[in-house]
């Protein structure tokens, strides 16, 4: 990445946020006026367990530069075990994506509670910086018929 590109280009990051924790955390970050990069496009989900791995792949296909799935800390799931199921799923998915050559930093996962507004801002800042280092997504992006 050259320096000029780094300053002018803002990545698009899709964030899947659990309604009961991370989404509220993002909300709290907002009302608390905590600053973080405006790189995210948020999709609210009822639980991190709702996130089908296909959603992540579709986001990559459609040109998302980064993807974050964020849910409740283990033990805090509103539905008791949704995040545990999600964790198993995503540990396999993360391994598979890395195996086929998708950069590890493009698809990330976090646990952020409704009270952790500062943490939410940190997570977004981190993933934005990670993705900026990688540059725009190219792998998996769907191309039109030439």
């Amino acid at each position, binding site marked *: 990445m050259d320096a000029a590109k780094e300053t002018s280009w803002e990545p698009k990051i899709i964030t899947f946020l659990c309604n009961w924790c991370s989404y509220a955390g993002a909300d709290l970050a907002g009302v608390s006026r905590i600053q973080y990069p405006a790189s995210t496009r948020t999709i609210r989900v009822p639980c991190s367990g709702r996130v089908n791995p296909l959603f992540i*792949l579709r986001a990559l296909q459609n040109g998302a530069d980064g993807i974050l799935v964020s849910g409740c800390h283990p033990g805090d799931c509103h539905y008791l075990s949704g995040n545990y199921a999600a964790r198993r799923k995503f540990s396999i998915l993360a391994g598979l994506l890395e195996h086929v050559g998708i950069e590890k930093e493009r698809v990330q996962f976090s646990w952020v509670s409704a009270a952790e507004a500062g943490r939410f801002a940190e997570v977004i800042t981190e993933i934005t910086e990670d993705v900026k280092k990688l540059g725009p997504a190219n792998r998996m992006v769907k191309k039109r018929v030439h």
Partner: protein
Amino acid sequence: MENLSKEIREAVKKLFEEDKVDLVIGFENGSLPLKATPCFIRNIDDIDRLVWNSRCENNLAVYLTKNKGKIGIVAKGCDSRAIVGLMQENQIDRENLVIIGIPCGGMVDQKKIEKSLQEKEPLEVKENHDSLVIKGNGFEETLKISDILYDNCMSCKHRNPVIHDVLIGEPVEEQDDVDEFAGVKAFEEKSSDERWDHFVKQGEKCIRCYACRNACPFCFCEECSVDSSQPQWFGKSIALSDTQVFHLMRSFHIAGRCVDCGACVRACPMDVDLRFFNKKIEKDVRELFSHEAGIDPEAAPPLNTYNTDDYDDFIKS
């Protein structure tokens, strides 16, 4: 091999006589010299069609979810593991299933044979204990079976059926000293770019014929999400990105189920390296959740369950 075929026929005859089965799914000689093909026996008069040899490569468990009634099935090691997997998922009626287990020395890879014959065409094949004698126009070649096995057979750890009601022949020695994940490990050593290049090549080969999916005993969904048009989850074309997503999702769907029977690899007309995905997932499932697919009918499918202290390192908290 002749003896084993005979033993199968006798076992099946007995099952029909005792009225334990209405249908037996086994193998018969195919239309090409190197092929055996699945056959459906409904009548005691037809049992002589049944054969056993090193070309009985299909996983017959794929037919179990499509047929009803009292069924007998010829099952080698991997078929039996697929049956166990289907039992875990409540897909078969064990009461009405007779498993005719048969220890397996591995199946011969048609493509490896083709390669070693170069462009000569086999017209006649004879199988001895550990070799194939292949005859054609003006040539005769003897190939050692252990040299031309499918890759997954070479690293198979369960050649003997893990579950059976009748056992044909004698158990064979298991290959305890092979590392079944050697290929995945070697691949993991490569750079991200090299792995991506390999993935691109596989995606470019795919013609979306779904032979891999349809040959797989675990792709038993009545409606596959790939086919669905309302909503349309998947891009339908052979755009590289769409074939890649298809393969990632298909292998993900059989995570914790795949028994590495190789049915998908054998079915694929375009030589897509499907074990590249499946074996990686199998390795991760083994390492992270200590689960080996198709061994214990009572075990919960690993993605249907969880532990509170599951692997967590990849998640920021």
